[in-house]
């Protein structure tokens, strides 16, 4: 068993969720998204991101618009569609459940975590 494989699998699992979160906060283009992820210590490669975005777009979860830029080629700015928002909501719930479960199993205290999540849920 390769630990890197397992770790990568874990990350893959939350990838979509994280990206949708970022875009939810506001219109974003791929470079931005990568920056944000980096800030959160979750590194992702362009080559992973672009296909993912395209898939999400093809699934009507995202939409984009072209924005001209002065110093370079035009950029795609992505935003959530309605379907995307709903999708996101469900993912969020799933995430909560999973996080709780894992906490329980691994024996970390769960109370404070739940509360924080609850707060977030309200803001949706």
């Amino acid at each position: 068993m390769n630990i890197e494989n397992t770790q990568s699998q874990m990350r893959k699992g939350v990838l979509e969720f994280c990206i949708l979160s970022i875009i939810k906060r506001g219109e974003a283009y791929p470079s931005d998204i990568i920056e944000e992820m980096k800030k959160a210590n979750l590194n992702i490669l362009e080559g992973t991101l672009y296909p993912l975005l395209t898939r999400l777009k093809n699934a009507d979860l995202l939409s984009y618009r072209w924005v001209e830029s002065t110093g370079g080629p035009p950029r795609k700015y992505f935003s959530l569609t309605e379907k995307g928002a709903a999708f996101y909501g469900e993912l969020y719930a799933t995430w909560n459940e999973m996080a709780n479960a894992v906490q329980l199993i691994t024996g970390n205290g769960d109370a404070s975590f739940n509360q924080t999540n609850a707060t977030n849920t309200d803001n949706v």
Partner: protein
Amino acid sequence: MKKVININFQGRVVPIEESAYEMLKEYTNSLRRYFANEEGKEEIINDIENRIAELFMEDLKKNPGGCITDDVVDKIVASMGRPEEFDGDGTEAAKENNEKSFESAGAEPKASLYRNANDKVLGGVCSGIANQLKIDPTIVRVLFALITFGGFGTGFLLYIILWIVLPEKGIKATVRKRLYRNPDVKVFGGVAGGLASYFNVAVWIPRLIFALPLIVSLLSSVFRRSFFFDHDFGFPNVVFSGFGGTLTLIYIILWIVVPEAKTATEKLEMRGEKIDLESIKHSVQEELQGVKGRAQKFGQEFKEKAKEFGNEVSNKGKEVKDRGKALSTELTPVTQRAGSGLLHALGVLFKVFFLFVSSIIVLVMTVLLGAVLFLAFGAYDVKDFILEGNWDNILAWNSILFFMAVPVIAAVVWFIRRLAGIKSKSHYLGYAFGSLWLIGLVSMIILAFNIIRDFKRMASVKENVEIQNPSKGRMMISIDAPEGKYYDLKWFDDDDRDDPGIKFNANEDSMLLNTVRVIAVPSKDSFFHASITKYARGNNGSLAEGTAQKFQFPFQQDDSVLHIPSGFVISKKEHFRNQRVLLLIEVPVGKMIKVDRKVNAYGWFSVNVNQSGINIQSDDDWSEGSNWYKLAGKWCTMTEQGLVSVDKSSPDDQDTLEDGDDVEVQIDENGMRFYKKSTDHKDDRKIEIKAKDSSVNIKLNASENGKMEGDETEDVSGVTKKVNVYTRAMISVLDLLRK
């Protein structure tokens, strides 16, 4: 200093170093491959390229007037990530597509044996095994081939079993340095060149290893004359047997099994260099130049070759080889396209066969030249007997040198050049060879014509010979050595023939010929007759006749014995013109004649030139003309149909004791008795040797012709003395008999 090009990237003009551009292209190609099965791949790729373009713009802004360098592209690619590094979720298909990745990162194949689906000639068995053992699949293949050939097919069976049993799997190649055949340095199949690259030695080393035992065994077998004489089909034996033969077999196996390094990647693998863009590019450039150079070299060599031989006879040999090569180079792409390893093997075997045939032709010509030279040296003395005048001489030398030697020399030179890889820029050698050869050919033709012309006409001169009838009604022909000293001219070591061949006398200005035939026929009357007919050839009738008259066949009669020489002499001035002597003896019916055994030593041959060409007849022991094999040395009676041999000895012959004479010996307690029988028992001779007490008594009874009578007694005592006496008595008796 690097070349910079402008590319149109995402709708913008980007100045970029050529090498950086190559890297970029490779990257986008790898992306393309990675996303080959992805939905919306065009968009994805476009997005990525877009991002790259953005980064390019940023960099260019930082260096106005600059360009995108290798470093920049490197950094971008590193940050974007290579396809294998993508956290591909749901892109399993993309992973499987990525077999041709540059670096063999990625999961190792599981630790069980598979057949390699990606690299198969027949069933991928060998490359699967090779992958398992982490060695070059070619090596495994060679081993398999060797086991199959050497072990009479055990390898084959093993292969089939493995083919059935092992499952197939797409395995990535994991070897860096592989054994290929090197097409750039090839004489035959590039095997030696490939081996040289693999082991990092100079090219001539493996070539020498292959060639040397073969050449050595060839030469030694030629010298031992086992080339043609010992085996029925000597030539292939030499090539395929022995140490040299094993190497040849190995070479052929390698030729079939080891693949040729055609693409740049393969060539790099052959040399064991790192496979990346830089080295691939260098290798491709090298190859382009090599191709140009090779095309030039080929054109030159081809012209040279065509001129060097410039004539059909040797051209045929070359043509076969060239056609073989052309065919094989045509065959090669065909065999590749067919994609099957079996066809390739067949193609190689074809090539080998052609090579084989053409090399046989060259070798045969070499041997012919050697034989002709050999003959020429041997015939040097004879030369002047055949050739007339200086002109002929010149023609003869021309022919040998130019006609025979030139093609062989040219072939050897060409071969050496090929081996050493030397290119020669000048065509002069080819011109010179070609024209010399033509001169040789022309002079050979003229010479042949001249010689034939001198043998065109035959004339004969007949002499009747005075023979006195022998007093006893029997004649004997005795063949003696002629006067003067003559040396043998022996070209070949024909120890099993006691044919003395043609002899020369001491001065070398005359030759002793033994082209004599003796024929005995019934005489028309009751007398013996003889006639000598001399034959000779010449340019025209009168010349031939003159030549015929000029030589002598002297004979001598000695009552009942006719002495004839074992050969007759011709002088250089008269030249050798197929002079022959026919001795015709007419024997009355009922009379007897005995011809010396040596009549079989006469060698009769006649050269006939007529419209249909040249016809050479010769008498062997079995031919009809002189059926002396059975009759020579024996007394024969002439009948109406011809000579008939007589078994028993005749009375006249009592004077000598010869082979085949019947002598009866009786030994009993009384002593020894010798009987010499005769046909009518009238002339029996008898010798009695008796031992009485201690004395030996010898009594001789002779016929009325002989005068032998004697009665000798000798006193002996002791047995040994008796034996001695017997022996001595025998000897003296025999002596007496001979008188």
